[in-house]
């Protein structure tokens, strides 16, 4: 137990380091740009109608104050860190004066929901099917599935989502293609709302699962094809151990371990794919928020989303790392 706690502590420190590095990077990227956010807003505003020079100047002063740009950069950085720990990233522009963090927190559960659903289905089911395919090399169904997976796997998330919109929006409109829930339903814990939420999540989730399932299937199949040549599998077969026991207890169980590591490594990509898909389906998660913020020139929200994204992914990786020793007893010994 003590070893596990020490391991957890080490990983926790690593998590904090990653988060710190990530949000600092995000801060510096957004503040070291050659384009000043103040000037770009001024440019946009004055392009739409004309203002007197004094009005422009007072606007400039107010904005500079608002963005905290009146102090030198390193002071801005410390201000930023201080405010960040308190969860304050300033007001948003697209929904002024709602705080940026609040917008992000409203959108976060939707994204997390999609991610959990697609990971559970795509990773779990994909791995099990891939494991069976790797062991039962002669199954025609699994071989066909493999070919389909190869065909779908390289297609980027956006295009799959797009194709789904085409199919279910124009050709066969049976499922809702936008929004998180129907417009006339009020958000509350009623069955009506919950059903509406589930219904609206089917398409985005399916789009994500389609892309992900193939990837895990192929990876697992390749992994398992190598594991079946391992001595302990051959020995169990030699001994007449029940085939079902071998497939699940010996082969898949051992292959899950590197697949869990792979999941941790690709979580960043999965997250990116999720928020891209959200945007296509106008799903009220971080993806749609981000695009809206960029188009609206709202740097506070963009920064907020970036920071939360970094924290979310890093935390998810940390949690997966915590599960790892439970699956692999060899790691426990370290």
């Amino acid at each position, binding site marked *: 137990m003590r070893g596990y706690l020490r391991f957890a502590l080490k990983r926790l420190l690593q998590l904090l380091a990653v988060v710190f590095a990530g949000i600092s990077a995000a801060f510096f990227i957004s503040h070291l740009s050659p384009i000043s956010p103040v000037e770009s807003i001024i440019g946009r505003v004055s392009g739409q109608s004309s203002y007197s020079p004094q009005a422009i100047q007072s606007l400039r002063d107010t904005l500079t104050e608002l963005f905290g740009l009146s102090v030198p950069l390193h002071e801005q950085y410390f201000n930023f860190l201080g405010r960040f720990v308190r969860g304050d990233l300033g007001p948003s522009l697209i929904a002024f004066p709602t705080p940026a963090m609040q917008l992000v927190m409203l959108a976060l559960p939707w994204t997390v929901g999609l991610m959990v659903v697609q990971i559970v289905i795509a990773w779990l089911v994909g791995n099990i099917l891939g494991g069976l395919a790797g062991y039962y090399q002669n199954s025609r169904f699994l071989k066909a599935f493999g070919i389909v997976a190869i065909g779908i796997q390289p297609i980027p998330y956006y295009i799959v989502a797009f194709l789904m919109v085409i199919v279910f929006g124009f050709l066969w409109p049976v499922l809702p293609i936008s929004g998180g829930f129907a417009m006339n339903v009020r958000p509350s814990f009623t069955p009506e709302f919950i059903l509406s939420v589930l219904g609206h999540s089917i398409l985005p989730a399916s789009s994500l699962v389609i892309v992900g399932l193939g990837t895990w299937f192929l990876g697992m199949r390749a992994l398992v094809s190598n594991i079946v040549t*391992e*001595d*302990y599998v*051959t*020995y*169990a*077969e*030699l*001994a*007449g*151990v*029940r085939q079902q*026991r071998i497939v699940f*207890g*010996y082969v898949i*169980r*051992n292959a899950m*371990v590197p697949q869990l590591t792979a999941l941790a490594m690709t979580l960043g990509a999965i997250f990116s794919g999720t928020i891209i898909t959200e945007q296509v389906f106008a799903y009220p998660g971080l993806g749609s928020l981000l695009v809206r913020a960029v188009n609206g020139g709202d740097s506070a929200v963009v920064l907020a989303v970036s920071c939360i994204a970094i924290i979310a992914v890093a935390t998810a990786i940390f949690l997966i790392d915590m599960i790892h020793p439970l*699956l*692999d*007893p*060899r790691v426990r*010994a370290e």
Partner: protein
Amino acid sequence: MADILTVEHLKAYYLMNYFGITREVRAVDDITMSVRRNEVYGIAGESSSGKTSFIRVLAAAIRPPLRVVAGSARYEFDDRSIDVANAGPEAAEAIRWSHLSYIMQGSMSVLNPVRRIERTFEDFAARPLGLSGRALRQRFVEHLGRLKLPPEVLRAFPHELSGGMRQRVTIGLATIANPQFIIADEPTTALDVVVQKDVLSLIRNLQKEMGASVIFVTHDMAVHANMADRVGIIYAGRLVEEAPTRQLFTAPKHPYTAHLVASLPRIGDTTQRPALEGRPPNLADPPQGCRFHPRCPLAIEKCRQEVPPLATVAPDQRSACWRWDDVVPLPGSIPAARVPEPVR
């Protein structure tokens, strides 16, 4: 009493097709032999001589591209008889572990790393023993005791045990269901000598207790001298000589055997040992006639053209050589007077 295993004209080949080239590797090419009850039969041969493929057939554990092409390998157990070379999977499953078991090479990796020893034992032994729950566990503890392993081993994971303990566990796994026939595939290779001695005496004691027959495969002639009642020498997929151990060492009747036997070094003996020229043949394209002729110091024209049959040349001794009569022990062999009686 009938022999427990009778192999007749067994042939097993690898049939492969890669990048348009078809290859037929004759790993087991017409082997006929038998193992008696309560006997330890040693099989010696170089790597890629086909001995591993041979015992895989005997263990009913071959998979494509290795296939049995001809012949039979029949076991006569107490309650049933089965030809594993031609039997279906159900018949083979019925004898696995309860009648026929296997000790594999390499104790490092034969145990499932994510499963506790106890569960692995359950996987292997529950079906053949027909027990479960407490009775089963009791059996395990008893058996581990015979192997001088403490009951705590059951709750451990493989990586928590030392190499020697793992090897004992593996032997325990193979013997828990009291099989009548055990195939041991190089169980002591890559073990240091001290552990080797332990493992060998363990196998010997278990064999005596259970009255089982053992086929013991190793390229180490010293181990054969210690363990085997009879030894069979396999070269290039064929059995080239077979004799009781003592006879084999003191009066080999095949040039290859003579070299093998002479290769054992002894303290104080500085005789130069003649090395065999050449390399083992490619089993996809073996030489005509006697497969050993390219390297044989006694080879004559007949050897190049006709395959010598495995014929009985002395009491209980067979040799596949046209010139068996001219084979003499080479310098460096242990003189007859010095070969101890078998330890059993």
